[in-house]
């Protein structure tokens, strides 16, 4: 598809138009119980078109340029009969310049997917009974054109997730995602992470209820912030169903807790230089030193909130690109060694909220829940649930590691760079 041609035709019939064209090539290998299940390949083009006319807005997605002949008249007919979108102000009408992306992926591109997976399976086989997971190689080209701005950028990245079960069928998991050759060794080290976790498994027991200090792994903490940061979208806040609603400037975490949306980290796959309406993408502190610092805005929501866009369009609903949690000064080994009684939780899933305003939720830890007493792992647990509020957990953060890891797992975890994080008095419940 030709973005110039699509834009030319759309612009002619609207007051403002934006076209975002993405070309995607993705290779994926899925494996389970030490055998490759399927190789998937996606090779697609998608044009997302936004148009505004007389205060009304309409969007359509296009996968074949020929379809424009029928979609465009239909869209114009529809837009004339629907009511105004009072939330829409304008696309970003300033001419913007974008930073230059630092691509560093020549070696990563050479990683052969099937071979990587096969090697991983063979390498961990002596240490765990069975393993499964997914390996992705993703390449996209994004083009954006509005009446005021245009841009093109590329992304390339790999993502690897492996879950392994030891001889007692106790599950463990590792995840790593990168767009940088500098991380090649870390990618190759994922087998060591699984083996290291496998060595930590001791005395498998059903978990016990109570309040515990918890050290969250980067994968686990990434999951919590992956549910938190999207709630900072001004659209979500506007709807009222967000823990950030009415909390600007309010303390929601300990002083050591800072979390950004950071599309400027080009070593991560979702790094971006511009957003869907041509604003420069930038690093935005959502919670800084425990205080709600900024929402995520597009041009229209920023106008409504009398502030500047943060470059997070979504023209309708702003959204984060990729998350970064500020590291601390601690060392994981020291965090464990100084823990009197608590838990290390490696992963979690099925996070659901009963109260978006207060961030009251529960989630189910998995893939390595280690009970620690006097600085030593004593037991490996299963069957527990974290039943608490995000604000409680963030306010009770007591320690953050220097070391960070870049993770992405399934739908549970956005592209996130996170350290190990320790929070006090986390409520643990279980089925009765």
């Amino acid at each position, binding site marked *: 598809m030709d973005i110039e041609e699509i834009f030319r035709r759309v612009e002619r019939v609207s007051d403002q138009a934006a076209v975002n064209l993405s070309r995607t090539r993705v290779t994926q290998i899925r494996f389970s119980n030490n055998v490759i299940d399927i*190789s998937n390949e996606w090779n697609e083009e998608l044009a997302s078109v936004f148009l505004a006319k007389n205060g*009304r807005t309409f*969007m359509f997605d296009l996968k074949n340029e020929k379809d424009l002949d029928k979609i465009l008249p239909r869209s114009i007919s529809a837009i004339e009969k629907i009511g105004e979108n009072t939330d829409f102000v304008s696309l970003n009408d300033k001419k913007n310049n974008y930073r230059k992306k630092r691509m560093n992926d020549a070696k990563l591109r050479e990683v052969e997917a099937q071979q990587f997976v096969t090697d991983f399976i063979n390498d961990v086989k002596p240490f765990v009974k069975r393993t499964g997971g997914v390996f992705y190689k993703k390449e996209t080209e994004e083009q954006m054109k509005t009446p005021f701005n245009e841009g093109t950028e590329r992304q390339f990245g790999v993502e690897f997730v492996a879950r392994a079960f030891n001889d007692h069928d106790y599950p463990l998991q590792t995840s790593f995602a990168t767009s940088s050759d500098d991380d090649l060794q870390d990618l190759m080290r994922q087998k060591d992470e699984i083996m290291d976790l496998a060595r930590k498994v001791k005395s498998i027991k059903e978990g016990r209820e109570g309040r515990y200090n918890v050290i969250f792994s980067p994968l686990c903490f990434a999951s919590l912030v992956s549910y938190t940061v999207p709630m900072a979208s001004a659209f979500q806040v506007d709807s009222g*169903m967000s823990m950030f609603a009415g909390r600007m400037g309010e303390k929601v975490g300990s002083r050591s807790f800072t979390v950004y949306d950071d599309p400027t980290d080009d070593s991560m796959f979702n790094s971006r230089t511009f957003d869907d309406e041509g604003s420069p993408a930038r690093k935005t502190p959502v919670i800084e030193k425990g205080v709600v610092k900024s929402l995520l805005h597009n041009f229209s929501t920023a106008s409504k909130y009398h502030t500047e866009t943060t470059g997070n369009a979504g023209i309708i609903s702003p959204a984060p690109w990729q998350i970064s949690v500020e590291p601390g000064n601690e060392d994981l080994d020291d965090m464990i060694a100084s823990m009197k009684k608590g838990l290390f939780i490696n992963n979690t899933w099925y996070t659901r909220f009963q109260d978006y305003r207060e961030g009251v939720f529960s989630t189910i830890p998995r893939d390595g829940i280690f009970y620690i007493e006097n600085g030593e792992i004593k037991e490996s647990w299963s069957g527990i649930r974290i039943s608490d509020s995000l604000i409680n957990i963030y306010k009770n953060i007591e320690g953050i590691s220097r070391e960070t890891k870049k993770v992405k797992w399934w739908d549970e975890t956005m592209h996130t760079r996170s350290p190990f994080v320790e929070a006090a008095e986390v409520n643990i419940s279980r089925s009765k």
Partner: protein
Amino acid sequence: MEEFVDKALDYASKRSKYAEVRFFSSTRNSVMMKNGAISASGYTVDSGMAIRMLNKSIAFSSINIGSWDRIKEEIDRAARMSEHPGRDNFSNETPVKDEWRVSQKQKIEDLPFEERVNRLKELDGILADEKIAMRILALGDNIEEEFNTSSEGMAIRSRLPKVSLFAMMGYMENGSFEQGTVEVGYSGGYEAFDSWKLVDKLKHESNVLKMAAKAKKLEDGTYDLIAGPEISGIVAHESAGHPTESDRILGREMAQAGESFIKKDDRGKRVGSDIVNLVDDPTIEHSFGFYKYDRDGVKARKRYLYKLGIINEFLSNRESAGRLGEKSNAASRSSEWDKEPLVRMSTTFIEPRDHSLEELLEGVKEGIYMKSFTEWNIDDIRFNEKYVGREAYHVKNGEIKEVVRRPVIETTTVNFYSSIDAIGKDIEFSAGTCGKGDPMQGVDVWMGGPHIRVRNLKVR
């Protein structure tokens, strides 16, 4: 692109021991409102070709760029990928040639776009009148057309129209917040809209939130539970449908949604009381997860997952049935044309029996009547689960008493099903989106069932 299907199938068949070529196109209309503003109106046309090939392993490839050279390139690539050692057995099934479509009384294609906006505005106005300040409403419809062919001779054409509505509401009173959702879906046309009785539903849900915001927590303890259709439906979906998915049982989803407490030799084991029949049925007319043939081309049928409290049947597709040495029971679905087919549910429910709601209540001295839920989750083997009530009442000596706020049940699958001692004769369904696979595939399902009575659950 459809013109290339025969050529692509011929080319792929020569490069694999089994090949499938599917052409798919869809049109989708959607409207969303947030707190009275029309936030998004849109139209999507989607089309493309999916190719699945089996040699030493399975390869799946999708392309929406309509030139033969590019299609040929994708088939060559899929052929190469399928030569990597992996799993290579599909169940043997008789290939079908057929055509099916779901009828519409009020056709989606005849509805002017602005009518969708008008309908949503009306519903938003009802919630606004009810003082529900926080509200998001989304209305969507789509028509999916598919031509599915295989090297074995399958040739199935289908046309499936669908309509769905999702409403999310938040209510705050004196700092006390409650949130709720209404979700409905239908295979067919806009005749669904009236049958959903949305005005009544939204007014009722508004009142539920207002009552819950003022309600008090119940004292922790042991209570009998009368679970309404929404609760019995989510339980059936989460702790009977998911754990009997054979790809989970075989570990295919081990790194994502997980496995199952049920192992492959567990058919015949007891998991519930002897009145519990658990069904998954894709053939219920106009159900949200309806299909006549699954994505593998196998004819859909009703499945008894648990029968008289005993594990009876696993949901399967050709891939998992092949590994189990069985025939598929037609649970192969994918959320979009460009995603691999997986074992999925359709409409999952506890089969109704003979009790009225009054009879269920009669036997309860101290209990709760939970009609809907807010937070819920279940572990990745589908055994430890949690349901938090949204609309819930205290029951005392057979009578429904005061509203109680967010009662929490954390129980296990076997404990829950084993504690069911009576099942209602009513049945009601609501729509949902079931997530699974990597990349995530959300498929349309119905969940629901009758009222049920569950004895002696811990509630807090």
